[in-house]
């Protein structure tokens, strides 16, 4: 797809600008390009779903929407082998530590998509006593995907946005991603669950 047609995400444009301003070594730069090409084209999801959105995620894998076209169909059940976690569904108080643990178990580089209004803000259950008001309280989120539940097309779009984000990051030297996690961990102190 042409770049111009995709130029709709301010956050990523900002990252691109930053990269251009800093400049980079030729060799490291081309390595980065190769690795980012691989990374952004091989995004394996973790099978993680709590409610309705999870069923739409199943539809996404089915013949009509076929996420296998993009190479996303290798859904791993073990978080160690997955690349991103699609938080599909409401996260409640009891689930929150479990989800945090799953996030900690994902191998770096790892990403999170908040899928559906429940994961973004609590959605229709926001006023409940047992619902987390947005998963950003627990884990850092890379892509927010609204909808209740989002259509499979929207899910494809969100993973494509994630893929674009991966492409503008630098793997060698100045890892944007790592800094964000460190900031997040500083704001949310917690002992290592990854035992």
């Amino acid at each position, binding site marked *: 797809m042409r770049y111009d047609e995709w130029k709709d995400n301010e956050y990523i444009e900002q990252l691109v600008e930053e990269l251009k301003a800093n400049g980079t070594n030729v060799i490291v730069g081309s390595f980065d390009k190769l690795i980012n090409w691989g990374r952004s084209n091989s995004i394996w999801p973790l099978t993680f779903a709590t409610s309705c959105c999870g069923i739409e995620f199943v539809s996404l894998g089915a013949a009509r929407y076929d996420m296998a076209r993009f190479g996303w169909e290798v859904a791993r059940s073990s978080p160690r082998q997955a690349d991103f976690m699609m938080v599909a569904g409401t996260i*409640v108080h009891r689930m929150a530590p479990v989800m945090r643990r799953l996030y900690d178990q994902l191998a770096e580089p790892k990403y999170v998509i908040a899928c559906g209004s429940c994961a973004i803000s609590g959605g229709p*259950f926001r006023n409940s006593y047992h619902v987390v008001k947005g998963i950003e309280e627990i884990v850092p989120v890379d892509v927010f995907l609204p909808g209740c539940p989002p259509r499979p097309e929207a899910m494809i779009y969100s993973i494509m946005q994630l893929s674009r984000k991966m492409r503008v990051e630098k793997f060698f030297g100045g890892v944007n991603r790592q800094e964000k996690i460190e900031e997040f961990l500083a704001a949310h102190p917690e002992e290592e669950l990854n035992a």
Partner: protein
Amino acid sequence: MANIQEKIAKQFPEATFEEGEILLVNIPDDKWHDLAQFLKGDETLHFDHLLTIVGMDWVDKFGCVYYLSSSTSNELLSVKVTTEDREQPMLQSVHDVWTIATTLEREVYDFFGIIFLNNPDMRRLFLSIDWKGYPLRKDYDMSPENNPVPRENERQEDVTYTYVKDEKGNVEKKTVTIFEPNDFVVNIGPQHPATHGVLRFRTAVNGETIKKIDFYSGYIHRGIEKLCEGLTYPQTLHFMDRMDYFSGHQYHHALCLAYEKALGIEVSRRAQVIRVLMDELARIASHCLFLGTYCMDLGATTMLFYTLRVREQILDIMERTCGARMTFNYGCIGGVMQDLHEDFVKDVKELLAVIPKNIKEYNELFIGNVIAKGRLEQVGNLTKEDAIAYGVTGPSGRASGWACDVRKTHPYSIYNELDFEEVVYTEGDSMARTKLRIAEIEQSAKIIEQLIDNIPEGEYCVKVPKVIKLPAGHWFQMVEGCRGAFGVYIESDGGTSPVRLKLAPPCLPLANVVDHLTQGSKIADLITISGSLDYIVPDIDR
């Protein structure tokens, strides 16, 4: 009904009665256990199925309303038991009369803090072990500071508690062991591909053989019942799509029927036909998805894609009329939200044409497969008695020989005019549960066939008042969801929002029976059995 009243009054002179659509018996707590035994044991009454326990907080007193049904005569009866103690409310447990009561009483304890004496398992069911307060009490402190989002992993206990009263009337808290210290306990869930959501089984195994399962739910408990108490009646409807997200239409139907019954609204024939059509389409879609995910759990991934093909076609039909793929929010008080799409009849006929071909394919590919037969036949046998005692309704109950289809036992809407068969098998194993759902797809198709050519003209939604106020009182309504009997209980004080909206989901008993069915079988059978019961976790947790 008068007969029942007479019989009870003869045995229990202290009981008082409230006439209504369903007879309500008021009984003091100390007589409740005896009455329960009488109601179940008596030959002619034979109330052997406990539908639900509605916990209630009337501010001045706590109490429970028990809804009972008889598997032979299909009569309904409700019993009200109350206590005025607010500090430590206690009621008699009836877990030895109806097995399902063990879990239903745990739910009431979790929400209201009512302790059931002699119940062998008085732990919280949905909320975490250290949760402060009982959320469905009217004086519950909702502020987030009271119960902040936990950062640490939940505390785990291998014991449970039971409360017993000794001769002097003192209540004693006793400890009951669930797992011995040297049990090899495998934790399956909440994040596990085979639990169909976030249910958690702590499984004690001996090699590959399962010794005991302790099930934990609440990982998607969203507090819908409490939320409904703060919303107006039409607003409460949209939660129905988000519980059992495959039975959205049926659940909407149930709540609308209850509201319309309370308001005395007569729904037009067209709206009734549309609702039934949608219910049955949803049932086909749900059973298709069941078959697909079930086969995927058993390792035959390809079936999922063949069954989702039909489901996508149904979702297309729904999307054209309702405007959404999953959360339709289609039923409303007085009828349905929008009229049918102009292509609806054509699309449905196309669907009906492909269903027989697909069913033939499913039977050839999976049901007739020798490995599938070996995995499913004689695995997870559920007898009819156990099905009733554990309250396993829906396809899983009917596979055990219990004719419990609400569409036949307590017909609602236009179901009594329709010609369809209630499929009942007697084997009670996983294979029967699977085959029964395929047979139900055929029956649903038969219902749609009868209706699709004669959808009457008329308005799709009758005029209802702008502000809906239910008169003071209480109502109970059941429908047949895709997974079993779904009940709603509404209590109103005459205002614009319900005092109590209790949702009795079919999936809680289904998850509860897993332990009983899996004892002594292999780990792989746990997947077979829990898959064949086909519970939906958000429906259990609400």
